[in-house]
């Protein structure tokens, strides 16, 4: 396996009227745990159910109802922590975050403020070949999601759907190590990739299963380095938190807008207020949701309905042993074992299923050719075919491997292989059998090729003269021979014979 080392990417600066400014970004990502039941109840988590149909008594905060932890969600959080190379806390505890809202029936969210289940970890965010930002993870904690308030169904009333209430979330909190909008998007992409590899969150941003609160501040060049040395936040600017973002594109736009807004304030002699803001994608701007003074006092305290959560090291070890190969390792292995380029390895490991498909093809044939065929031909064909995913591919790894093997054996040319791929894609079947049955096999019999070459040379004396004067024109003869043999002649053999017969 390759030991990959990375350089840190260049920090993005934004030119103000007076200075260049740097960005400092930290994120809190809320990832919905992939589980069938909620964090503290047996109600289903299925998306798109009838409103208020996935609600247990405890989810609706009926009097006297008590939460009971769902062990599977705990396992998923531990798995996520291990996947982010984080420390697992064998003892953690749940706290209540108190506030009133109709989609929060208990009047508090059960979360983990004081003792989260996962401690410090890291995510390597690649920004190009050999260039990556190491983003530190501060913590991951488990908490309940809220329900949904619906304000646009009736002119006078609001409605509440509690299906989402109590669904398990992992809040993944980063350190302020992200230095630009592109890095922010790349961080989310990488985090999502790891979560999907681990199977702990489906990463569906459209359904809100992965959403981010983005903290943005600005500072002058040099200030961030001082923060890094001291971990003293006073070197950094005042941050604003942009809440509840669930689109990569909007995250980048919001950060860019927010940074420019803060620069304008500071350069104009003003002070940035610490506040919570919302991004309005229609107007392309962030606006204040509540200031620090209006911030809720959540009155966190340990939830007396739940005992501290104690897990055993042996259980954590079992989970660690069952972790899949993660993207960074897989990519390095693909580069080392199959000789793939950084780019190809990145593309193939972006999704776990793609990587597995590629690997099956490669193991049945040749790594580099497999990478080319999967990335260029198969992905391209699937995209054209209604943007299909790899799991819907009509061509199996064995079939694709078969096609590649036929090329390598010299049975078919690259050009014929494309036709063969299309047949297999559309009709299915065993590639070598198709080649036999339809007479697509390449002619390597030099006698037959020689006869064809002689025929072409004899028929075109003028061209022979020209080619003998200018050897570059010999290619014309190769083309004619290929045409005459229906494309089945081995091009290398044709080339060699043409050159020989022309005396070049």
């Amino acid at each position: 396996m390759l030991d990959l080392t990375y350089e840190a990417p260049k920090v993005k600066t934004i030119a103000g009227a007076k200075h260049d400014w740097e960005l400092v970004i930290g994120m809190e990502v809320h990832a919905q745990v992939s589980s069938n039941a909620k964090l503290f109840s047996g109600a289903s988590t299925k998306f798109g159910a009838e409103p208020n149909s996935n609600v247990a008594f405890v989810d609706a905060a009926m009097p006297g109802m008590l939460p009971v932890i769902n062990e599977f969600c705990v396992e998923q959080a531990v798995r996520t922590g291990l996947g982010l190379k984080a420390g697992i806390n064998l003892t953690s505890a749940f706290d209540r975050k108190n506030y009133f809202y109709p989609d929060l029936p208990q009047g508090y969210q059960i979360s983990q403020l004081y003792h989260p289940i996962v401690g410090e970890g890291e995510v390597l965010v690649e920004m190009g070949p050999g260039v990556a930002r190491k983003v530190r993870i501060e913590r991951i904690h488990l908490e309940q999601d809220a329900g949904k308030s619906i304000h646009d169904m009736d002119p006078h009333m609001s409605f509440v759907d509690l299906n989402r209430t109590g669904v398990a979330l992992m809040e993944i909190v980063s350190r302020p190590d992200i230095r630009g909008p592109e890095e922010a998007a790349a961080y989310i992409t990488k985090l999502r990739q790891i979560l999907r590899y681990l199977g702990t969150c489906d990463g569906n941003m459209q359904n809100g299963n992965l959403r981010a609160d983005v903290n943005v501040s600005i500072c002058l060049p040099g200030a961030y380095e001082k923060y890094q040395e001291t971990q003293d936040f006073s070197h950094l600017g005042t941050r604003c938190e942009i809440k509840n973002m669930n689109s990569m594109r909007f995250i980048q736009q919001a950060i860019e807008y927010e940074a420019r807004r803060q620069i304008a304030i500071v350069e104009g002699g003003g002070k940035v207020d610490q506040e919570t803001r919302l991004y309005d994608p229609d107007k392309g701007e962030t606006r204040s949701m509540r200031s620090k003074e209006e911030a809720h006092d959540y009155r966190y305290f340990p939830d007396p309905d739940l005992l501290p959560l104690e897990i055993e090291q042996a259980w954590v070890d079992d989970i660690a042993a069952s972790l899949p190969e993660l993207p960074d390792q897989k990519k390095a292995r693909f580069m080392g074992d199959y000789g793939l380029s950084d780019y190809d390895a990145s593309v193939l490991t972006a999704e776990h299923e793609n990587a597995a498909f590629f690997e099956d093809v490669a193991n049945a044939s040749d790594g580099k050719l497999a990478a080319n065929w999967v990335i260029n031909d198969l992905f391209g064909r699937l995209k054209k075919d209604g943007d299909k995913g790899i799991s819907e591919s009509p061509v199996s790894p064995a079939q694709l491997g078969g096609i590649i093997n036929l090329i390598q054996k010299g049975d078919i040319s690259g050009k014929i292989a494309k036709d063969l791929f299309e047949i297999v894609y559309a009709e299915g079947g065993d590639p070598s059998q198709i080649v036999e049955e339809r007479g697509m096999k390449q002619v390597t019999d030099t006698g037959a090729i020689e006869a064809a070459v002689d025929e072409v040379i004899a028929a075109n004396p003028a061209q022979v003269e020209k080619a003998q004067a200018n050897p570059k024109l010999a290619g014309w003869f190769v083309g004619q021979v290929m045409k005459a043999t229906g494309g089945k002649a081995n091009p290398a053999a044709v080339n060699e014979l043409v050159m020989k017969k022309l005396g070049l």
Partner: protein
Amino acid sequence: MADLNKLTLADARDALKKGETTSVELTEACLKAIDAADALNAFVHKTPEIAMERARAADARLAEGDAPAMCGLPIGIKDLFCTRGVPSQAASGILEGFRPEYESTVSQNLIDAGAVMLGKLNMDEFAMGSSNETSVYGNAVNPWRRGNDEAALTPGGSSGGSASAVAADLCLAATGTDTGGSIRQPAAFTGIVGIKPTYGRCSRWGIIAFASSLDQAGPMTKTVRDAAIMLEAMCSSDAKDSTSTDLPVPNFEALLTGDIRGKKIGIPREYRIDGTPEEIEKIWSDGAAMLKDAGAEIVDISLPHTKYALPAYYVIAPAEASSNLARYDGVRYGHRAKLAQGDGITEMYEKTRAEGFGDEVQRRVMIGTYVLSAGFYDAYYNRARKVRTLIKKDFEDAFAQGVDAILTPATPSSAFGLGEMAEADPVQMYLNDVFTVTVNLAGLPGISVPAGLDKQGLPLGLQLIGKPWDEGDLLNIAASLEKSAGFVAKPAQWW
């Protein structure tokens, strides 16, 4: 048989088994007594149909020889327990009309044991109070009076309805809950037995929460033996309550040997409080003498952090309550205020909660909100938690020295008059819990046993505090004390 409603659980059980009476007869006797006792305001939701149906079912089981521990025994259930299809509103206006679709684990355990529910019992609103005066139904009344004085006395609280009903023989026994003394204080005020088991013995599932880390259910009965019988039926390990114990439930009644020779009984010096009436002091020393005569060893002990218990309790309990009661917002069930044109969600919360909660509940919600607020959390809540740890350690140290149980007064006075505290500082009312809150803070079992009458003819109780999970030993010592004290007085029926 005459006066079936006056039987103890044990006697009624034995009579049923012998076929001397039936559950239907027992139940009818209780229902009759209940209907004649509206002046006590103990039962706030009567369930005669349910009672008769269960009584008939119990008789059928008895006839088949398939009688579980409490088969056919009529009891009352505190309004704090959710009972399926029956109003369960914690004596609060905010739960107006609320009928749960589920049965609390404890009341289900009692149903499974064959007990017959007669109805729901009065209490202080959300179990917050020591006199039953914060109930939305109006207060229950103590069947005891001061001699010939007709002034109505409090049955104590919060389980005042339960205490009144058992003392007045409206039911054979009742459930109570105890967060800071709500079983033991009313038991003492009405001359009955009440035990709060170790935190975790009874499932809290389906009991409307006041302060989750302190709340425990327990029986309120006429005798210690009855307490043993009913406690066993109420306890269970419950996967639906994460704080419930996995320990098996002992046969408590079988542990009542009456032999307490060699037991070490601690007398904590910090429970001698200035201003405690002489009569209380006397009954306390009498109690110690009785236990000594029965063969126990009496030792002085120290529980040095006792004086901080009441303030710590009145930080922790309201803090948890302020959060537990946030769900009563008018959105999903119970009371919702009528709103004015233009009122939004904030007005709905404010008006609903202002109308639905009584003064004492509002006071505690505000105290709880305050002590959890940013800037005050460490000074109040965290500090109280530290005090709690120290109080727990006080008891651990005492038990580590070989003490088997601790004897204290149950209350600082006998029952006081209803309305007497109306003008007083709320803290005066909170002082009622001074001998009982330490037990909740430490999660220990505690039992109140009637030990005598004061000069006015009112019952006085003594409290025994036991080791965690050792309710069996505690009940046995209590049974010895009960026998020595020989308390047999009954209130004269005036209602």
